[in-house]
């Protein structure tokens, strides 16, 4: 009985995979190329970004990017709402990654290995995150990618360093995040006053569009994403909640 059930499950799984993969296998048409060719010729002059992916999500589709940052903001807010209520019941401090400096020495899970690797790797990862964020209009990368790398660097620093820095203080991180979101919304409406529409590029250099607007959007989005994910991870590891 049990064996037939297993075979039935296996057959149903394979049939589902076959139905999903069937159009790809029997497909005889070539991929459509019109949008690729259009982007290849026009993306640089339309938005000013050399990296076509950046040109799409900050030039043609900047409205969607605003929506994505809003989704991230809402999910972080919900997570923090759950975490604040949960933290009061969690009293077992001996197994927690408590980040207060006076508790660090006698914590069971904090080893020298963690401190050496995380504190030495943190600044390098932070620099790489800022590089990916700032050069998103030329090389692969951009705001979201650089932001997540910055967030992991801040988590490294929060885990590894002995002292308390401003970079791991959640109050300051939350202020940076709010400021970045304000600048993002201001940059979004600024195009309206320069006759280029909502999220239009207001900065012109001569005849062609300048990539400075893309750089500004990358910086703002990167700071916002990085700070919000860093706040969430620090709060999950039992960090300070003095606000």
């Amino acid at each position, binding site marked *: 009985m049990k064996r037939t059930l297993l075979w039935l499950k296996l057959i149903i799984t394979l049939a589902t995979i076959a139905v999903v993969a069937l159009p790809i296998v029997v497909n005889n048409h070539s991929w459509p190329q019109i949008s690729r060719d259009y982007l290849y010729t026009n993306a640089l002059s339309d938005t000013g970004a050399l990296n076509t992916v950046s040109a799409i999500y900050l030039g043609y589709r900047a409205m969607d990017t605003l929506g994505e940052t809003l989704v991230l903001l809402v999910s972080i807010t919900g997570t923090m709402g759950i975490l604040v209520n949960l933290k009061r019941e969690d009293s077992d401090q001996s197994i927690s990654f408590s980040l207060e400096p006076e508790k660090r020495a006698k914590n069971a899970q904090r080893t020298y290995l963690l401190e050496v690797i995380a504190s030495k790797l943190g600044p390098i990862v932070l620099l790489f995150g800022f590089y990916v964020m700032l050069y998103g209009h030329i090389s*692969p990368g951009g705001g979201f990618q650089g932001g997540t790398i910055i967030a992991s660097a801040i*988590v490294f620093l929060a885990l590894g360093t002995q002292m308390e820095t401003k970079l791991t203080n959640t109050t300051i991180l939350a202020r940076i995040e709010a400021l970045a979101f304000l600048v993002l919304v201001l940059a979004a409406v600024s195009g309206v006053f320069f006759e280029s529409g909502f999220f239009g590029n207001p900065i012109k250099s001569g005849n062609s569009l300048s990539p400075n607007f893309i750089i500004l959007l990358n910086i703002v989005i990167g700071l916002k994403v990085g700070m919000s994910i860093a706040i969430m991870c620090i709060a999950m590891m039992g960090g300070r909640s003095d606000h």
Partner: protein
Amino acid sequence: MTILLLSMILALGVYALFSHDLLHSVIALSAVSMISALLFTILRAPDVAITEAAVGAGVSTVIFVWAIRHTRRRSKD
């Protein structure tokens, strides 16, 4: 090369499903993310590869481990 990486992803995914220790499953999922990042690099999508490596192998592993620490780690049988 691609076939090898894809079969490794498949094997790690099956292991993550059937493992009785949740921490082993999380490590297997992290490895799946790293191999996918390698695949995206081979397919010439470095933007996606950076995101996959940072989010899939970094942040989501932290969140999973946090969730496991607040629940039970091993299954009963």
